[in-house]
């Protein structure tokens, strides 16, 4: 008997008990719908968080001195950053490779001084797409390329220091030789992100000014921040870099430079994976129940089919094809049911500001209260495959039962 004939018979069989099939399909569609929306929300939210984290200073991938993580110090810098950045930009998955200097310093005004995190940037190469703080300048603007005195402060830091736009501050830091250096800056802009660590402790300076202050050469920096076109390419870029890099530099991903965020996302993803596993289990249980009952009801029929010459494999295939049809119909209906809500949630998102205000700080980052649903294609493919596997797996026992039916016992049930 041809495969197509058995497949056609399987198709008709799933509609024998229309109500049972529709109830089973409804649970399948509901489970798949939830799995897609949950995964899509996670993909959109965590992807956005990772991109935001990367744009906070270190990039998706960071190239820096090997000891900079364990014992950060001005003397631990890397050289030849211009050539390295150029080489990195040649990678098609890299959108920006930016030499930066990061460290700690004291900022003082008339009667107050505060510790601050300083980032030295090239104002001609940076914008809010490469450094998120630049999109949050609430007052003033970023210093110009030829501005030797320009400095941008976190809004809360400026408030604590009692300075406003145009006022002078003195910053003090230790150079690469361990000598203290003091410089004068004039406040050009204030940053307000809503994140306490940034607003209360960020200080931006032109990278060339910091190079001179720290005693670095014109091609030195503490790091090169690499921004990926898609955060999912982080490991690929890092792997290629590690292959090319020399042992005087280390290549770190955002998982290593933003361990707290990585831990938070891993925890959330584990929870989501557990929930999705439960959904798949529910789908499988629904299909199993429907198929098993259906096979048990048809045992006499399987007995007669076996008697007239159907082989065990053909009976097994018949029931497996019934479960495959259920999977395909269920996925088709899931696509129809999910399409509109998905489109709506991916374009308009949904607003949780009533619950969480304008946003919430997570792992030193502001999370937007507007949530979107945008699933990665590979995750969608995973869900589709998981549904098919769950369905086929749940068909195995009923199919085995049908394939191994004893005609004599089965026909006695007539």
């Amino acid at each position, binding site marked *: *008997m*041809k495969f197509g*004939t058995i497949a056609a*018979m399987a198709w*008709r*069989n799933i*509609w*024998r008990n229309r109500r049972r099939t529709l109830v089973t399909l409804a649970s399948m569609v509901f489970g798949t719908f939830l799995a897609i929306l949950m995964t899509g929300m996670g993909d959109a939210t965590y992807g956005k968080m990772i991109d935001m984290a990367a744009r906070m200073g270190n990039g998706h991938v960071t190239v820096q001195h090997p000891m900079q993580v364990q014992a950060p110090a001005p003397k631990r810098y890397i050289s030849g950053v211009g050539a390295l950045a150029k080489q990195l930009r040649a990678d098609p998955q890299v959108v920006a490779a930016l030499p930066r200097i990061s460290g700690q310093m004291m900022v003082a005004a008339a009667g107050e001084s505060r510790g601050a995190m300083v980032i030295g940037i090239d104002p001609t190469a940076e914008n809010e797409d490469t450094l998120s703080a630049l999109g949050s300048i609430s007052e003033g603007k970023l210093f110009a390329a030829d501005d030797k005195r320009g400095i941008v402060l976190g809004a809360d830091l400026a408030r604590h220091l009692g300075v406003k736009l145009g006022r002078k501050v003195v910053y003090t830091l230790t150079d690469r030789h361990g000598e203290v250096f003091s410089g004068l800056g004039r406040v050009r802009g204030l940053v307000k992100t809503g994140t306490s660590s940034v607003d209360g402790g960020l200080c931006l300076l032109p990278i060339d000014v910091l190079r001179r202050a720290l005693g670095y050469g014109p091609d030195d920096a503490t790091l090169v921040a690499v921004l990926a076109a898609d955060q999912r390419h982080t490991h690929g870029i890092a792997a290629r870099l590690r292959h090319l890099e020399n042992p005087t530099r280390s290549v770190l991903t955002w998982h290593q430079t933003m361990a707290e965020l990585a831990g938070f996302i891993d925890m959330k993803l584990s929870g989501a994976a557990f929930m999705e596993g439960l959904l798949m289990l529910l789908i499988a249980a629904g299909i199993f129940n429907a198929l098993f009952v259906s096979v048990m009801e048809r045992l*006499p*029929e399987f007995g*007669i*089919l*076996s*008697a*007239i*010459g*159907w*082989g*065990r494999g*053909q009976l097994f295939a018949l029931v497996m094809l019934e479960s495959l049809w259920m999977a395909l119909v269920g996925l088709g209906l899931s696509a129809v049911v999910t399409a509109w809500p998905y489109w709506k949630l991916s374009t308009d998102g949904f607003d949780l500001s009533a619950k969480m205000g304008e946003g919430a700080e997570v792992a030193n980052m502001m999370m937007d209260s507007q949530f979107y649903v945008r699933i990665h294609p590979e995750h969608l493919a995973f869900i589709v495959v998981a549904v098919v596997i769950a369905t086929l797996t749940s068909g195995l026992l009923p199919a085995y039962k049908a394939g191994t039916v004893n*005609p*004599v016992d089965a*026909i006695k049930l*007539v």
Partner: protein
Amino acid sequence: MSGPIVALKGVTKTYQQGAIEVHALRGLDLEVQPGEFTALSGPSGSGKSTALNLIGGLDTPTAGGVHVDGHDLGALSRKALSDLRRDRIGFVFQAYNLVPVLTAAENAEMVLALQGVPEKERRQRVVALLDEVGLGGMADRRPDELSGGQQQRVAIARAIASEPAVVLADEPTANVDSATAEMLLDLMQKLNAERGVTFLFSTHDPRVMARAGRIVHLVDGRVERDERRDG
């Protein structure tokens, strides 16, 4: 081929029902020649259905040998037995004979499909066969659109479609009314007479016994009487 189509030699079948041993057949000897129209009769528990199951290769004897169309069933693998049933034995059961989601023609041609007969050829053969069993024009009807008698006719068409050596019919008239039973018997008798199809029934229906060319009476798993009739 010459010689019997079916031969049972010293066949015993013992079932275990809990702690009790049930002796369904106790040394049954039986031969059925080609073209016979034979009924196995006897009271419930006499071993009629067990004998048919053993002849059909659906069950295995506890002792003794079963030969069908020259094959020793005890020597065949599960696959070979399945192929033998498909190619050389036709079955008609009491009920649940047909697959409800298939049409009359699809049910009737199922064995031909299993044999790999091309679709066009098997459809031609089956439409002609349905005509012959009195179901002309009903090829596309599903079982739930047919009466009980019509369903049994489809089952008979399926049983003879592949021109088997023997058709085994287990109480084929048990679930139909008298008029339908008479029509089914007319049909099977006609097929036996015109096509030479060998029929072996299990029955305790007097109407079937009245039509049979040979009646083998079974009692307690043994042949009590083997009655042949002329014409």
